[in-house]
Every structure is written in C-alpha cells, then in structure tokens.
C-alpha cells in the first residue's frame, strides 16, 4: 500500500481542499456567465483505477474534458469534466449564440471559448489551493478534449500507476442553480501525485 497514513481525517482535509478550490471556481463561473452557480458537497476517496474509470457510470460516456498538469511544490493532474450539453449552454451564453452546438459546430471559436472557461475555472481553483496551502502551484496550459471519460481520466492514472493501483480523487461538482438533478453537472477532479500528499499534510501541519 502506497498511502499507508491516509485515514478518514486525512480524507476530510483533502475534501476541504476540494471545497475551497471549487468554491472559487464556482464564483468565477458565476461572474463570467452572470448566473448563479451552485456547488455540491465535495468528496475525497481512495479508489481503484477501475472505479475511477467508472466515476460517471460508464468509461465511454462522452464528455468535455479540460486537463492540466500541476507542477511546482504540488504535482498531479487536474480535470474539469462536464456533459456536452452543459458546455453548450455555457458557450451559448458566452458567445450570445443560442444555436451553438459542440457536436456539430466545429468552429474554433466555440472550442476556444470552452478552453477559456476551463482556463478561468482551473486558475481560480488552483490559486485558491495555492493560497490555502501556502505552496507554489503552477500548471500547464489546459488542454481540451471531447471524448470518452475513461480515455481522458486515464491520463491522470498513468504516473500513479508506477507506484500504486489506487488513486486518491478529490472531486467536487458545480452546476447552474436548480439544475443539479438534470445531470448537468460539471466536476473538478484533482488527482495529486502520491508524493504530494505529504507536501499537503505538512503544509497544513498534519501528521
């Protein structure tokens, strides 16, 4: 077992990180779209690779995925995944084009709007994280893919697979107000590298 010291208290702390990050991201999204955004109860769990692939139900569920690699004091992978229809709603609002559809519209404009939403949200999440932990957290420019959830998330498992068959996933979902039951939820998934847990706990003075 690679994470011998992870107990429920540690998971609670990690959950708080997801909470703080996603709250800032939700605020940014709300400002960007001029819309109320709700945040849901965060979760931090240690799960198998298989369970990770099945987080959305089936691994071949098609989603919009934004991916960033974290570098600096804290290393790992972060994803913002959302249903295509939810992404469409955001892009339509941003571009003031009611008919925009990522499935049929291949214009660069829509993709770049989505990329920008990903950029802003992940930036808000990470800067909140960085402030809270007093650590330097940098990231790559976010990449965008519209594809099977499993194919996207597995990128976050590859490095971890060198040391373990388990991964700690910190996930939080946000949605437009009143839309949380319609399947229109975007999720932030933070997968810190195994070495980064000690960095996080040390930064917070936890053993």
């Amino acid at each position, binding site marked *: 077992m*690679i994470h011998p010291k992870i107990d429920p208290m540690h998971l609670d702390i990690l959950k708080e990180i997801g909470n703080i990050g996603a709250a800032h991201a939700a605020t940014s999204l709300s400002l960007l779209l001029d819309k109320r955004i709700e945040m849901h109860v965060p979760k931090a769990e240690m799960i198998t690779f298989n369970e990770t*692939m099945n987080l959305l139900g*089936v*691994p*071949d569920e*098609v989603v919009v*995925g934004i*991916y960033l*690699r974290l570098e600096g004091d804290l290393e790992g992978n972060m994803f913002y995944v959302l249903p295509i229809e939810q992404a469409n709603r955001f892009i339509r609002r941003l571009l003031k084009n009611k008919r925009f559809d990522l499935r049929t519209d291949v214009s660069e404009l829509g993709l770049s709007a989505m990329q920008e939403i990903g950029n802003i949200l992940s930036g808000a999440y990470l800067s909140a994280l960085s402030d809270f932990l007093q650590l330097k957290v940098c990231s*790559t*420019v976010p*990449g*965008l*893919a*519209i*594809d*099977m*959830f*499993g*194919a*996207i998330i*597995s*990128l976050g*498992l*590859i*490095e971890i*697979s*060198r*040391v*373990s*068959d388990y991964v700690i996933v910190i996930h939080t979902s946000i949605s437009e107000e009143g839309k949380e039951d319609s399947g229109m939820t975007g999720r932030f998934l933070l997968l810190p590298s195994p070495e980064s847990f000690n960095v996080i706990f040390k930064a917070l003075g936890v053993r």
Partner: protein
Amino acid sequence: MGVAKPPDTIRTSGLGSCVGVVLYDETKKVAGLVHIMLPDSSLSRSETPNIAKFADTGIKGLEEMLLKEGAQKCRLKAKIAGGAQMFQFSSSKEIMRIGQRNVEAVKRVLKELGIPIIAEDTGGSSGRTIEFNPATGKLMIRTVNQGVNEI
C-alpha cells in the same frame, strides 16, 4: 487481463493512451485481452507491481494464461488498438507522449515473443472502446467521431 471463449466476447472501454492487446488462437478459439498503461515494468516503483499494467510483463502474463487455456504458442496472433494522445501539448514532458511509447513497447514485446500483429488501430487523438470476438477473430473498435470499425 482476462481470457474469453465463444460465445463470450472480451472488451475494454475508454482506452486513451493505454493500449489494448488481444492475443488469440483461431483454431482453439480462445482469446485474451490485456490493458497496457506503461511501456516497461522497470518504471514501477512498487514492491508488488501489478504485472498486467506494463507492456513487457503484461503481454508475457497474458501469453501464459492463454497457453494454460490450451492455446498453441505457434498459432498465437495479436491485434492491438489504443495509444492515442488525448491532449495536444507543447510540453516536452515524456508523459505526454505516453500513448506512442506504449505502442512502440507493445510492438517490441510482441516481436520478441514472435507473435505476429495481424491488425492494429493505434495513435491518433481519440479514445476507443474495443471488443474482441474469439469466434470470428474480429476486433470491433468504437470511437466518438468515427463510429464503429472492425479490424
């Protein structure tokens, strides 16, 4: 890693940079599938590595499983799919090229074992769901943009 005999098929969903390797014996009608995440077991930093994840140990492990199921080594053939690059980055980090490295490693290991590759659908930037039918020897590949394809 698993094996299947007719009427069962064997599948794996949502392959990104991972490579799905199918080994099969057409005469005996038995097939196995392993899901490769990393090119080589020397990359492992675990004391008890899961051999199925690495190209070298995973393919050899699958070959052994199939031989135990009655497959003949000289009749084994391979079909492979996956190894996509899901995100385009300018970053020079090796991890970004992991799909391509996985494919190269799989081919090298199959060559070492003398198992011919009958068909492949590798690279690109799309996720794949694959399903192999041991009765027909066909590998069905589904992607989001190109629909279903059989090799």
